């Protein structure tokens, strides 16, 4: 993105590749879900992995992540984002599921949480 020497700023080719990969990933995840090829947690894990791959395809081919030269500030900031997202989403899920597990049994009076 910052660099000019790799030529990706002026080439259509990476855009076309990113577009094809993202369309294929989207359709794959959609039809795996609609035709119930997988169900339950297996399905959730598979579609989340496909989404992460698709996001990386867009980040690399569209937004040129990983292509800058040193000192790679964009990548540093991106890794910090990943850390924050893991803490926020992972931490929230961990705490809230433990909370439900530990607190809810005493409240089982037909209230569906």
């Amino acid at each position: 993105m910052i660099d000019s020497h790799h030529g990706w700023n002026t080439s259509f080719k990476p855009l076309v590749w990113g577009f094809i990969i993202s369309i294929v990933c989207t359709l794959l995840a959609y039809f795996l879900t609609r035709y119930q090829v997988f169900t339950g947690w297996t399905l959730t894990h598979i579609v989340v992995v496909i989404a992460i791959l698709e996001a990386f395809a867009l980040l690399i081919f569209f937004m040129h992540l990983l292509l800058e030269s040193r000192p790679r500030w964009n990548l540093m900031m991106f890794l910090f984002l990943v850390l924050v997202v893991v803490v926020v989403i992972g931490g929230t899920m961990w705490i809230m599921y433990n909370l439900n597990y530990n607190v809810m049994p005493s409240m089982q009076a037909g209230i569906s949480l």
Partner: protein
Amino acid sequence: MKDSTHEPYPDPHHGHYSKTVFGFWIYLLTDFMLFAAYFAAYVVLQTSTFGGPGGKEIFNYPLVLTQTLILLTAAFTSGIGGVFAHRRSKQGALISFLVTFVLGVVFLSLQISDYHHLIATGNSWERSAFLTAYFNLVGLHTIHIVFGLCWIIVFLIPLCREGITEIILTRLSCLRMFWQFLAIVWIFIFTIVYLAGVNV
């Protein structure tokens, strides 16, 4: 390996262009942190339907797939616009961003018709904690789309008048990144809200 015919305007490491684009990258990452908080709230609340319908009963899956494909195409055309801007082709950039604008308007109208359908059938944000979290997360994305559309108009007027100067190239690069960011966020909404929602 510099391409002499299409050498970009800016100094690759110290100019206005690279500082602005880097700053905008940091803005996009902080925006994604905001979305992360909304995703966390949604994941926690998605089972809290309070006797109301769950996601798989009310989501219109073919519509959501159409929206995803439209937004991916919009990210692609804005990338094309960015390449034309770097090649200093005013006309190419103008047409590409206009196509992005049209696709964005189609996406927005599909999204609003979906909201309208949900509210008309009694499933507004007042129905349950699940629907509150749903409208918050998807609504935050919709607001970003509205800003992105306004922003295209605001940037295309000086592009028409002045052609591609360094400042306009910088602005168009930020605009391109914004639309690509919207597509990436939507991929996660598509996956976590709609696809993984069939298990809830």
